[in-house]
């Protein structure tokens, strides 16, 4: 009788463990298939002309994606330039005065920014910049992306500044250094790792964002030098090609997806490396 119960328990244990391993493996396989599809279909599309030519007009051969690559660099670059200093500013303030009533409210603001769906930032940038200016622009795209990147940078800076050992600050203060200089010369350099991590995490997030750019950056088949003109970006190009009915356009979409994915993975790996350090 007792042996029966024991073997039953062991049976249940083994079955569930097997089931679990099975489920985990199947899901892992399905998820890996995303990487596999993008890689196997994308690599074939990539060659020198693909990387260095402009998008052709419909009907003609749609040759390259260089306008999207440079457009993404431009939009994401401007976003990063604005967000990093402001993010560091806010992050340090939040880490230094965590009990200040203003900071408590700002924390809720950060939580809100993290919860708001990215497409709503697109609407906001549209209402704030596209409507007054009267046309789409890469500037409005950068503004939309900035709201997505900002909370990630702020949180990461805040956490890394909080982890700077108290003894370091106290040593600096004991030497008679003013709190201001302590923050600037001791706390920020020590938290630098976290600041870079936050920037990379945020960058990895925004280079793949499509929804907020639909009616801000909008897309353009040309090389654009001004932030006041509409611009093509990688995710927008992938979306257009993915939903197009032509197989050769879809093929180009896979190629662009592959490049974007590799970039995101490199950012992700760098972040992991930095975190471990």
């Amino acid at each position, binding site marked *: 009788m007792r042996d029966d119960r024991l073997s039953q*328990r062991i049976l249940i*244990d083994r079955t*569930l*463990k097997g089931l*679990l*391993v099975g*489920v*985990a493996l199947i899901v*892992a396989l399905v*998820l890996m*298939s*995303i*990487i596999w*599809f*993008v890689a196997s279909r994308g690599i074939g599309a990539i060659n020198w002309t693909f990387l260095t030519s402009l998008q052709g007009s419909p009907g003609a051969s749609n040759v390259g994606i260089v306008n999207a690559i440079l457009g993404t660099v431009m939009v994401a670059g401007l976003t990063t330039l604005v967000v990093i200093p*402001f993010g560091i500013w*806010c992050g340090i*303030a*939040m880490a*230094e*005065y965590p009990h200040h009533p*203003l*900071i408590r*409210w*700002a924390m809720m*603001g950060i939580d*809100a*920014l993290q*919860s*708001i*769906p*990215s*497409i*709503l930032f*697109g*609407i*906001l940038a*549209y*209402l*704030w910049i596209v409507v007054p200016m009267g046309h789409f622009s890469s500037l409005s795209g950068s503004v939309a992306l900035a*709201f997505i990147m*900002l909370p990630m940078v*702020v949180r990461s800076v805040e956490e890394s500044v909080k982890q700077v050992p108290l003894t370091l600050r106290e040593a600096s203060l004991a030497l008679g250094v003013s709190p*201001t200089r302590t923050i600037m010369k001791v706390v920020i350099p020590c938290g630098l790792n976290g600041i870079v991590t936050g920037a990379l995490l945020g960058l990895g997030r925004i280079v*793949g964002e*499509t*929804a907020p750019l*639909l*009616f801000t950056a*909008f897309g353009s088949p040309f090389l654009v030098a001004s932030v006041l003109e509409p611009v093509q970006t990688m*995710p927008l190009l992938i*979306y257009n090609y*993915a939903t197009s009915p032509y197989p050769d356009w*879809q093929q180009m*979409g896979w190629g662009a*997806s592959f490049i*974007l994915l590799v970039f*995101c*993975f490199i950012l*992700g790996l760098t972040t992991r490396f930095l975190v471990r350090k």
Partner: protein
Amino acid sequence: MHHNRWFKFGLLMGPFVLMVLVVCMVVTLGWAAWPSVAEVGLGFYVTDVWDPVHDVYGGAVFIWGSLLTTGLAILLAAPVSFAIALFTGYYFCNGVLALVAQWVLDLLASVPSVIFGFWGLMVLVPMIRLMETHLGVPPYGVGLFSAAMVLAFMMMPLMASLLRDIMLTVPADLKEGALALGATSFEVVKHVVWPHTLPGMVSAIMLGVGRAIGETMAVTMVIGNANHWPTHLFDPSNTIASLIASDFGETSDPLVISHLIHLGLVLLLLSLVTGFLGRRLVRMTRA
């Protein structure tokens, strides 16, 4: 001393500007949605027609569409995420296998949503179309179920990582104690790990919902963008975010734009509530 006070003041200006920005956002959206609220009022939430030809606009289909796809995606993703978390956080928590699994999860969490959508459209949709032909429903391929599947796959890495982190904090004493008393691994999961993870499960679901409900690109590519009630699981439908993505740039009628922003405001409310609850719960369970 004077100098330091100014520094503190300057430093606090940053978060202040940030807060002002967030308030401005809500005010802007409310302002832009006002013409719609004034025009249709509460009727907007019960009207299930979106007909630009006859100028009838209602939001019910999209609000329910968002809730339905998200709910369905959670139903699919939650058990599987728990299984993956058990795999990496309990059964194989030390060793190469768990390290590789965690590495893959982190990579997948960084895949842009437009690529998930592309993959869904090219790989998942044909598979679901095949399934639909066997089931005898109209084989659109795109629809509610496809959207929920893609969303579920997008949520899994995030939820599984969260749950794993919580599982790793289960005290080793408890697990070893139960094992020493003769419990099988499954019984340890059932009586020790599961109760410990339950609060985390709630917060993981909340954060998953927050992410899924506002997800735009992947959904808009596979849901079929049909502005009517879904009659069955595989029917094409639409969500708030997906409707905004497909219609916002297409229309020049200010009232339609206002209607879309009205829907956006509903989406904002839904995601703020779930996002706040989720993040609060995560912080509570970590503390």
